[in-house]
C-alpha cells in the first residue's frame, strides 16, 4: 500500500511535466490547428538557455523569466516568419516544417552545448512538510507550478480582452476579423505562449531527467498522450490528461511488478513506458479522438 501511494505521488509529479507540455501543445492546436512536433525540443532548448544563465552566475528566479521571454519571442518569430507564409499549405508541408524545426533545435543544442549529460539544480528549497515521505520538494514545486500556470492561463483567457480576442480568433477567425481582432497576430501570440509554457516545462523537468539534447523525446510522447486523453482542444483537459498519464504510467509498471512477484511472469515494466504511451495515443485517437474533455469537431461537408 505504502508503495502504491508512493507510485501515485511520483506519477502526479511526472504528470505535472506532461501536463505542462500538453498545455503548450494545446495552445498551438487551439490557435492554429497544428500539432507541434518541435515542442519538445523547443522546451529542451529553453532549458539549456536557463542552464547557460545559471552558468554565468545568474540567480535561477531571474534567469527563468528572462528565458520565458526569450522563448516567447522565439515562438512568435517562428510563427511570423516560418509558418505564416504556409498558411494555406497542405498538412504535409506543415508537418515537414515542424520536423525541420525539431532537427534544427536538436542539433543546435548539441552544437552549442554538446551531447554530454549535465546535472541541473532544482530551484526549489528543501524543507519539511507533512507527506514528505511521498513527495520531494521538487515534485511539489512541479505540481504547484503547473497548477499556477493553468490558473494564470485560465484567468488570461477568461478575464482579459486579449484572451477573449484570442479565443474569438481561434473559434471563428472570419467573424473575429470583422470585429476588429487582428487574427494573424493572435496566432503568433498563441505560439509565443506555447513556447513560454514549454520553457517552464523544460526547466522543471531538467532536474529530473538531466539536461541533454535528447531529453524531451519520451516526455513529448507523454505530453501527446496527455493532451489526447484530455482532449487536444481543451487546456484544462490537457492538464488533467497529463496528470492521468503520469499516474497511469507509474501504476502500470507498479502492477507489472506485482504480477511478476505473484506469478513470476514478466509482462510489463519500466522498460515499456514508451510503448504504453504509443498504445494510449493510438487507442485514444481511434476510439475517442475528442478525448475526455474536448469538443467534438463537426465539419461541414
Amino acid at each position, binding site marked *: 500500500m505504502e508503495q502504491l501511494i508512493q507510485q501515485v505521488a511520483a506519477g502526479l509529479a511526472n504528470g505535472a511535466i506532461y501536463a505542462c507540455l500538453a498545455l503548450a501543445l494545446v495552445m498551438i492546436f487551439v490557435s492554429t490547428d497544428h500539432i507541434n512536433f518541435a515542442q519538445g525540443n523547443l522546451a529542451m532548448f529553453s532549458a539549456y538557455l536557463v542552464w547557460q544563465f545559471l552558468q554565468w552566475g545568474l540567480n535561477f528566479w531571474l534567469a527563468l523569466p528572462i528565458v520565458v521571454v526569450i522563448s516567447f519571442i522565439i515562438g512568435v518569430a517562428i510563427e511570423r516568419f516560418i509558418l505564416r507564409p504556409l498558411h494555406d499549405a497542405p498538412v*504535409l508541408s506543415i508537418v515537414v516544417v515542424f*520536423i525541420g*524545426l525539431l532537427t534544427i533545435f536538436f542539433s543546435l543544442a548539441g552544437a552549442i552545448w554538446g551531447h554530454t549529460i549535465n546535472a541541473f539544480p532544482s530551484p526549489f528549497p528543501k524543507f519539511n512538510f507533512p507527506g514528505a515521505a511521498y513527495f520531494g520538494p521538487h515534485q511539489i514545486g512541479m505540481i504547484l507550478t503547473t497548477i499556477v500556470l493553468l490558473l494564470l492561463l485560465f484567468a488570461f483567457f477568461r478575464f482579459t480582452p486579449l484572451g477573449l480576442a484570442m479565443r474569438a480568433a481561434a473559434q471563428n477567425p472570419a467573424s473575429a476579423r470583422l470585429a476588429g481582432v487582428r487574427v494573424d497576430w493572435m496566432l503568433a501570440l498563441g505560439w509565443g505562449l506555447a513556447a513560454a509554457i514549454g520553457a517552464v516545462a523544460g526547466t522543471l523537468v531538467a532536474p529530473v531527467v538531466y539536461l541533454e539534447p535528447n531529453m524531451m523525446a519520451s516526455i513529448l510522447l507523454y505530453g501527446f498522450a496527455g493532451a489526447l486523453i484530455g482532449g487536444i482542444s481543451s487546456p484544462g483537459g490537457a492538464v488533467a490528461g497529463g496528470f492521468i498519464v503520469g499516474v497511469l504510467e507509474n501504476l502500470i509498471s507498479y502492477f507489472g511488478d506485482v504480477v511478476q512477484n505473484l506469478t513470476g511472469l514478466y509482462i510489463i515494466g519500466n522498460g515499456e513506458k514508451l510503448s504504453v504511451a504509443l498504445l494510449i495515443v493510438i487507442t485514444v*485517437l481511434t476510439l475517442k479522438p475528442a478525448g475526455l474533455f474536448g469538443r467534438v469537431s463537426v465539419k461541414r*461537408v
Partner: protein
Amino acid sequence: MATTTTTANGVTRKQTSRFGAGFSRNVWLLLIALALLPVVVALLPLVGGPAEVISSYTFLQLSLMIVYSIAVLGLNLLTGFNGQISLGHGAFFAAGAYVAAALVAHHHWPHMVTLPVVALFCFVLGYLFGLPALRLEGHYLALATFSLAIAVPQILKYRHLEGVTGGVQGLNLPKIVAPWGLPFTPDQWMYLLVLVVAVPIFWFTRNLLDSRTGRALMAIRDQPMAAATMGINISQYKAITFGLSAMITGIAGALHAGMFRFVAPDSYPLELSITFLVGMVVGGLASLPGAIFGGIFVQVIEKYADSIARSLSSTLHLPIDIEPWTIYGIALILLVYLMPTGIAGGIARLRRLMNNTGRRSGTS
C-alpha cells in the same frame, strides 16, 4: 477529376503525377545502365585489367543509395501517392531488418531467401497498423506514426522478444559472399543482389501506379469524397497501401541489415524515420524518380554532411560547429518553400522549359 482539384497545391500535384509517368523511361535507362555496370566491372579481372577500377567501397555506397531509394519509395507510395502521412517508416524498416536477421541468425537461412517472409510479415504489420490509421487524417496520422517512431527501439528491447531480437545486444549476421566461386567481392555481390531486388520493386510500383489501382490511390489523396462516390472502397485501398508501403520499406530494411551484418534496437531511432522523410521531400513527392534522387541524397548527405557542415561553419565564421542535422532541418524547411516538388519536380520544370523553347524555335 483533375479540373476539380481545389486544394492549395492541387496544381503541383497534377504536374508531379503526370511527370512521374513521362519520366520513367529515362529511369529505366538509368537503372539498366547501373545494372550493366557491375557486369562490366566483373569482366574486367577476367581480361586481366585492374581488378578494382571501381573500389569495393564505392559499391557499398551505391548499394546503400539503392537501399535508401527502396525505403523512400515505400514511404512515397503511402505519403506521396496516397496522401497518408507517415513519420514512422523507420519502424517498418526495422521490422524488415529484424525478421531477416532473426531467420538468418537463428535458423541459418540464406539472407536472400528471407525476403519473401520479410515482405509478407511487413505487409501484414503495415496492414494491421493501417486499420486504426484509417480513422486518422493529416496531423493525427502524423502524430500516431511519430509516436511509433519514438517507441520502436523500446519495443525491440521488450523482454519477451529477446529470444528473437537478441535484446539490447542485437544480432550479428554472417557475411554475404558470392556463391559458386563467382569472381565478385562481397561488396560487388551485395550490389548486384540489391539491384536485382530493387528493379522489380520499382517496376511493380510503376505498374501499380499506372493501373486502375494507382489512379484510385491518387484519387483518394486528392478528392476522397469524389473517389468514394465513384465506388472506390477507400478504407480497403488505404489499408492495403499501408501494407504495401510497409512491405517495400521492410525489404529495404532487410537488405540494409544484410549489408551491415548487424541489427540492434538503437540503430532504428526516430532520426531514421526523419531521414526517409527528408529523402522523400528532397527527392520529390509522388514521383518514382524522386525516390531514387531521395535515396541518393540521403546517402550523399550521410557521407558528406560532416564535411559540408564543417566547411559551412568555417566559411560563415560561426562560433560553433554546425551539426549535419542542422543542414537536414534547414534543407527541409527551404524545400517546402522553394521547391515543394523536390529534385524530381525541379528537373521536370527544367525539361518543360527546354521543351517549350525547343518547340518555339522549331516553329519559327
